[in-house]
């Protein structure tokens, strides 16, 4: 930092480059301020609506960013380009869908809404910031903003023992992993003398790579791998997902993952991290296998989808082992498709779970096809997408990832991945079979689908089908964005 940059205050355009974050924070603060002022009984709806408006405004802000010239802001801390806007849109859209899902959930579970919506928005701030940060200090802070929000949200049903337990587990293990990441950042600073990813990239690319940098990459990888639930750092996922409130699981299995994958892409590719290939190879293979095998015998649908999310992190990492030119767009596409289908799944789950999250085992889903055809049909769509059946986004996601891997001659990894997705079909299909081919255990009608949930399902269903039918535009955008990263 030269004295001249210190003396120049940020320009207007630089604020535009953190506009989604500003919008989300402002709305979050407004909610926090209003919470004690409004009537308790009406607060849930009102604050939820404000949060929804906030997330929609953030989507609009991200859209607006595409109109502005790409560039850096705040002394090269943040860079907004097609790459980060892509993740901004994924994160903000997921946030909107989660808020829509939560409307009814908060009422049914009788939870206090105030901090909930604020925390969702603050979490989204961290995630947006993560995808545009190009400076390890800022990445760390963004990571913590997002993590701390989700720690609290995981335990939001605080009178329920498993929810607060999931929060404790997530918090202790999460901060343990963050400590590893931080230690890695410190060592990287020591090895290269900078915390800016671009400068680190230059240094590592230019000369002999000090051993310290290898250790730093390893430690950072541990921290980030933990956040995306990649094996062998996946172990917290099933417990935390089982205990956390269903809409929040939908949130934290998609948005922070997308953001952390963005960071991983930047750290691994832009910083020219050395020696990554076999590391990722093994981690990807392990995640896919452990995730799918673990899911086979699960009877709790949230737990089942937790293992599934480990497996999907594995598929996604396959793209990281591929060449940047095809791997980065494939990873970006996968992130978007996975976000759409998984957040949709959890929208259905949070509605069906009912008060106290009573109905979360596979047995409960028996006969859902008859009891609520629309709910069953949308869940089927998302599950088919998770399997990777054509005309859903999940198909092209896997398709691009595996074809990218084959282009990089990763035959072994592709075969492991393809076999794994064959295994995966089994347990997703179990849910579908349950819904359509078993007698319902209870005949009580499922509560009608409220407007918010309907909108959430419509958005995620549309996104899943759009990515499955017309993946071209998104992929082309991802490709142009990825070109900026190298």
């Amino acid at each position, binding site marked *: 930092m030269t004295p001249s940059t210190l003396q120049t205050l940020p320009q207007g355009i630089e604020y535009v480059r953190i506009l989604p974050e500003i919008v989300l924070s402002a709305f979050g603060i407004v909610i926090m301020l209003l919470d004690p002022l409004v009537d308790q009984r009406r607060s849930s709806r009102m604050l939820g609506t404000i949060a929804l408006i906030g997330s929609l405004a953030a989507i609009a802000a991200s859209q607006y960013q595409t109109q502005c010239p790409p560039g850096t802001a705040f002394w090269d801390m943040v860079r907004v380009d097609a790459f980060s806007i892509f993740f901004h849109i994924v994160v903000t859209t997921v946030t909107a869908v989660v808020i829509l899902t939560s409307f009814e959930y908060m009422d049914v579970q009788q939870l206090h809404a105030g901090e909930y919506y604020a925390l969702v928005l603050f979490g989204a701030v961290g995630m947006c910031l993560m995808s545009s940060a190009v400076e390890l200090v800022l990445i760390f802070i963004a990571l913590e903003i997002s993590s701390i929000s989700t720690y609290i949200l995981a335990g939001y049903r605080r009178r329920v023992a498993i929810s607060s337990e999931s929060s404790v587990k997530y918090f202790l293990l999460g901060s343990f992993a963050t400590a590893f990441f931080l230690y890695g950042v410190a060592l990287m600073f020591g090895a290269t003398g900078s915390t800016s990813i671009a400068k680190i990239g230059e240094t590592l690319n230019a000369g002999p790579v000090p051993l310290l940098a290898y250790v730093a990459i390893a430690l950072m990888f*541990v921290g980030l791998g933990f956040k995306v639930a990649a094996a062998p750092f996946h172990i917290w996922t099933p417990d935390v997902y089982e205990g956390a409130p269903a809409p929040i699981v939908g949130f934290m299995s998609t948005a922070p993952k997308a953001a952390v994958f963005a960071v991983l892409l930047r750290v691994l590719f832009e910083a020219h991290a050395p020696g990554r290939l076999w590391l990722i190879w093994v981690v990807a293979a392990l995640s896919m296998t452990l995730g799918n095998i673990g899911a086979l015998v699960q009877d709790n649908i949230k737990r089942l989808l937790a293992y599934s999310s480990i497996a999907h992190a594995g598929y996604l990492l396959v793209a990281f082992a591929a060449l940047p030119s095809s791997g980065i767009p494939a990873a970006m596409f996968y992130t978007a498709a996975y976000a759409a289908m998984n957040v949709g799944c959890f929208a259905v789950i949070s509605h069906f779970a009912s008060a106290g999250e009573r109905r979360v085992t596979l047995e409960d889903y028996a006969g859902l096809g008859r009891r609520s055809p629309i709910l069953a049909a949308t869940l089927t769509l998302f599950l088919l997408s998770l399997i990777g059946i054509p005309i859903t986004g999940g198909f092209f996601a896997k398709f691009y990832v595996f074809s990218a891997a084959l282009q990089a001659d990763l035959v072994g990894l592709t075969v492991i991945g393809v076999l794994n997705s064959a295994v995966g079909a089994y347990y997703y299909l179990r849910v579908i079979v349950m819904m359509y081919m078993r007698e319902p255990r209870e005949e009580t009608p499922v509560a009608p689908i409220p407007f918010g949930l309907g909108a959430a399902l419509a958005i995620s269903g549309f996104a899943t089908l759009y990515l499955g039918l017309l993946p071209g535009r998104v992929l082309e955008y991802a490709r142009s964005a990825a070109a900026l990263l190298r």
Partner: protein
Amino acid sequence: MTPNLHLWLIPVLPLVGAAINGFLGRRFSRQTVAAVALGFCGAAFAMAIAVATQFSSLPVVPHIETLAHWMRAGAFQADFAFYLDQLSFVMLLVVTGVGFLIHIYSVGYMWEEGGFYRFFSYLNLFMFFMLTLVLANNYLLMFIGWEGVGLASYLLIGFWFLKDSAASAGKKAFIVNRIGDFGFLIALFLLIQHFGSLTFAEVFQKIDAMNPETAGAGLLSTIGILLMVGAAGKSAQIPLYVWLPDAMEGPTPVSALIHAATMVTAGVYMVARSHVIFEHAPTALMVVAITGTLTALFAATIGIAQTDIKKVLAYSTVSQLGYMFIACGVGAFSAGIFHLMTHAFFKGLLFLAAGSVIHAIGGEQDMRKMGGLRTKIPWTFWTMTAGTFAIAGFPPLAGFFSKDEILWRAYQTNWIYWAIGVFTAFLTSFYMFRQWFLTFFGEYRGEADHAHGDQTRAGVPAPHGHGGIHESPAIMLVPLVILAVLSVAGGWVGASRFELFLSPVFYSHNSGHLIAPSSEEAAQMRQMESLESTLTMVSVAAAGLGLFLAWLLYYRRPKLPQQIAESLGGFYTAVLSKYYVDELYATLFVKPLVDGSTRILWHTIDQGVIDTTLDDTADSARDVSDTARRMQSGNIRSYAGWVAVGAAAVIAYMIWVGTR
């Protein structure tokens, strides 16, 4: 100026029908549901006919119509585009024609069933995906149709989902198909990687441009074999055939449409469509031929031991698909497609007729409880007779021409294929006539009051509340008659004319096959012709032998096979009994066949090895899963331990990389 045929309408019409019935059908009367389903399917058939009338006047074949751009990512692109050449033209007519007839039949067959609208919605959905598959301009669109038909088939097999066996059969079909699909998918990745395209025309052009001697033989063989893995899954070839017999849990019209006439032939179509790849990959061709031969023989032998009328037809379908793959494997793609077409006629007919039999006697499927139905359901009897003679390969019925052509082409490649093929033809004739005699001749062996048959077997057509064995309604008989006519006459077009029609597809790339013979070759040709007629006589004789044996064992001496089967210990007494000659036949043929088929092939290999392997794999996977989840002890300190161990491993690896 190329005319616009609006090809996209052909698949989309049934989709509209599926959507209307699926979303609104619950409120419709049965008549309305049937009218919607038949209307849109019939419209697709009419479109196909309209295409047929204009086909000869098309200036350019293949005729390609692009509906919309789908995706363009870098150099790779795929469109929603449709590809009409002679091959897809034949498939189009077969699929829409047979499909439409089976739709009509289903109206009668399913009339009493619950979920009427759901059934027709699925059936129309199936037509949409099947037509997409057939008309696709690139592998990706084809793959979408390919997966879609699998999905529709899964829904239809599991249609009577309250029946446990139906639900699990549906699941099995889906999962076995996934295994095949992944072969297909990897083949597609390889095509993208090496040719940068999935459009048929582009890929084939690039392959033709390769030096056939050196370049890429290994690559093309790999792609070919992977495509064959996909085809084996969809078309029920060894070792992925296990789902098809189980799929008979679905309603009979579904078996006719999906598991006999159309979907299961998709694999054959795909191999024929990819003939350019296979022609450059002799190894892959050999794999196709050997798989086909083994499957044909294996399934036919299992067919002998079946007592369920639909299971016989199921194994027969597997066996006949084997014939089609033999044809493709010896490079006679048009013969394979010819057999695909005639098979669609007669096997569709046989399934529908079997459905009519089942319908007539109140849901019974066990042939041992049938018999003597010839006079009671004459229409069904005569149409089924046509189908049986056609599949057995008696001239001048359709099956004769196509099977004969395959066997002749197989002989030219390797006489072993031919020999096994002829033996299979004998077996085919035997088990089909066994079925014919058991069902229609002799005395009725069912319960007297069959109409109130076993109600606990949810899924079979419900009792009709009227006594007596009754002929099916006209709406079911009309399709039977039309298909019977086609089974009789469908082969008269002749294999050579059929081949000539398809020749632009199969020979445009390496011309030379169809050049007019020079004078020196003419003599050789005559010699070949005499050989061909000898071989034809051999295969007809084999069919005749099968008929004779079935007649002997199941008509003249209907008790005999049972005695033989029971008399394992008292075998010598049986030989000493007065039917000495019959016993000899029995000893020579029936006992080894029936016994071998039941014990070794069906029980041991089919159910014992292949089925159990699949089941065991699933079981052991669950065991592993159970063990694996013990890792998840729930204890935070052990979780932190895993993170620390993982971190240590990653750091150690990175240090190793760094110091290397």
